[in-house]
């Protein structure tokens, strides 16, 4: 299965992935006038929330390690095991969340070794679903990464 992988050696810590992720999942993007729509998405009543987060290490000399963290779509997902309402499920390897069932108890965030699920402003959890459900079609973070620090590929 194709998954999102991170190449931390070339991650710049620019945080573009976060903004593109939030935008892709905001419902705003369509095929025309992308920049204007992005403005609209971020200046509307609700600021869109990213499902990916760039973590930054401490400065060492001039540099620090940075890498983007989003759902790894684990083969044995603890978040699914821990979910008390059955809102999380695995479909063809992709871990999905049912907004109707989620009660925002954050058990999944605690169970996840990477802390990948985020709390949304409508009191449910949000997670990366590889942009398969939104109009982007494939992970927006990967498309937007300027340095191929996030890739979407099949690995053994």
């Amino acid at each position, binding site marked *: 299965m194709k998954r999102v992988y991170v190449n931390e*050696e*070339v*991650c*710049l*810590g*620019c*945080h*573009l992935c976060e*903004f*593109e992720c939030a935008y892709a999942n905001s419902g705003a993007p369509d095929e025309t006038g992308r*920049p*204007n729509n*992005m*403005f609209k998405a*971020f*200046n509307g009543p609700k600021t869109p929330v990213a499902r990916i987060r760039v973590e930054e290490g401490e400065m060492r*000399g*001039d*540099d*620090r390690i940075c890498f983007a963290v989003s759902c790894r779509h684990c083969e044995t997902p603890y978040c699914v095991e821990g979910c008390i309402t059955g809102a999380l499920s695995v479909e063809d390897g992709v871990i999905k969340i049912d907004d109707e069932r989620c009660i925002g108890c954050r058990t999944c965030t605690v169970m996840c070794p990477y802390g990948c699920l985020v709390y949304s402003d409508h009191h449910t959890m949000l997670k990366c679903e590889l942009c398969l459900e939104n109009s982007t079609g494939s992970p927006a973070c990967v498309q*937007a990464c*300027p*340095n*191929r*620090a996030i890739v979407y590929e099949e690995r053994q």
Partner: protein
Amino acid sequence: MGINYLYPQYEIHRDPMRCIKCRVCERQCANEVHHYDEELDVMIADEASCVDCQRCVSMCPTRALKIVKTDNTFKENANWKQDTIEEVYRQASTGGVLLSSMGNPKDYPVYWDKILINASQVTNPSIDPLREPMETKVFLGKKPSSLKMDKKGKIVSEIPPQIELELPIMFSAMSYGSISENAHKSLARAATALGTCYNTGEGGLNKELYQYGPNTIVQVASGRFGVHEDYLKAGAAIEIKMGQGAKPGIGGHLPGRKIGAKVSETRMIPEGCDAISPAPHHDIYSIEDLRQLIFSLKEATNYEKPVIVKIAAVHNVAAIASGIARSGADVIAIDGYRGGTGAAPTRIRDNVGIPIELALAAVDQRLRDEKIRNDISIVVGGSIRSSADVVKAIALGADACYIGTSALLALGCHLCRSCQSGKCNWGIATQREDLVKRLNPEIGSERLANLLTAWNHEIKEMMGGMGINSIEALKGNRLMLRGIGLTEKELEILGIKHAGE
């Protein structure tokens, strides 16, 4: 602090209707131009430190930014132009030599743009490179004056060592130190993928790059940095750098702050110590001395590697080239006055040297007149900007071209000409680790390979149009060129006719 005489050169225009305050511009600017004001919830820019490298503009996800030249104007004066006055102010406040980088940006004539290429019509049919074979392979090195073959037609003459290139374009010398490790990796991988060569410059060869040795030209320059036996043996050829187009007659100076652990190991000098390349080679004061160094290097490498001698294009270039051809060198590389650099005194960069087009024509003619053209190959560099420049250079007599600036552009360089600051936002001319990693060698090498692949297609198209199917048949074929808007003297030096003749 006194009066600041200098007004910022650029203005940063941020469209508030587009900015989403993602702060990518702030994180990406090593010059710390942008910052976010939490109190006001706006992005603010201090354009005084902006060098117009366009990194923020390229990274802005909403295209909210553009950088424009300021229209703040000093009283107009055709003699005392604004930048001339600003340079005086700058020197009056610092007392220092003005430093610049990349190539000469002044408005001197570009002869490439005054030369036109021929095409076949009716009598000599053109060739379609998509349907017929087209040869762009070149061999650089001394060619034997005659070939002896045995009865089966096998060549028995001894052939001097050659550099074999799949296309007549190489990456010119840029040292590890002046450019980053990732820039070097990009060049090395692209050269290997394309079947051409890149050049180490004077910075030695990073251990990790020995694997690309067959596509590497190793340079020996006046500072002899990083030179040892394995280094000389690692490459496809050895280049002795006598001069550089951007700064003929002077040496180099890599400041100590750029000499980190890896650069120090590669250059074989202490960490943090300035790397100074003297203006002359202290052991070369004549062609005879040059010959000694050439043969020392050949001896050290068992006469298996061709030796290139690189000089800057200066007034007496033809006579100097004639001497070099007789000194035992296999290839002469000539660097024109528009060639780039990581740092040079502005006055030298902008006022010393001559155009590569004239230098090339003069050298090729001189070597032909003296019947020694076959003894040496000619490689030219110093602002080869497109495949058309390559075709014109070959028709003027070059065997191959060096590209430096075009290669850096492919890697993202926007010619902001601030390499000397060491804060290259594109990860090219810097040793700062956070900036170096901005250039992913995987992407860099792909872009370089794309560029040269595209140029090679175009070269084939242009050759095909002329009814020529190999670089060999184009070389020195000045009848394929015509000048436009050139004086008699210029045409005479270039050895071409005027358009219409």
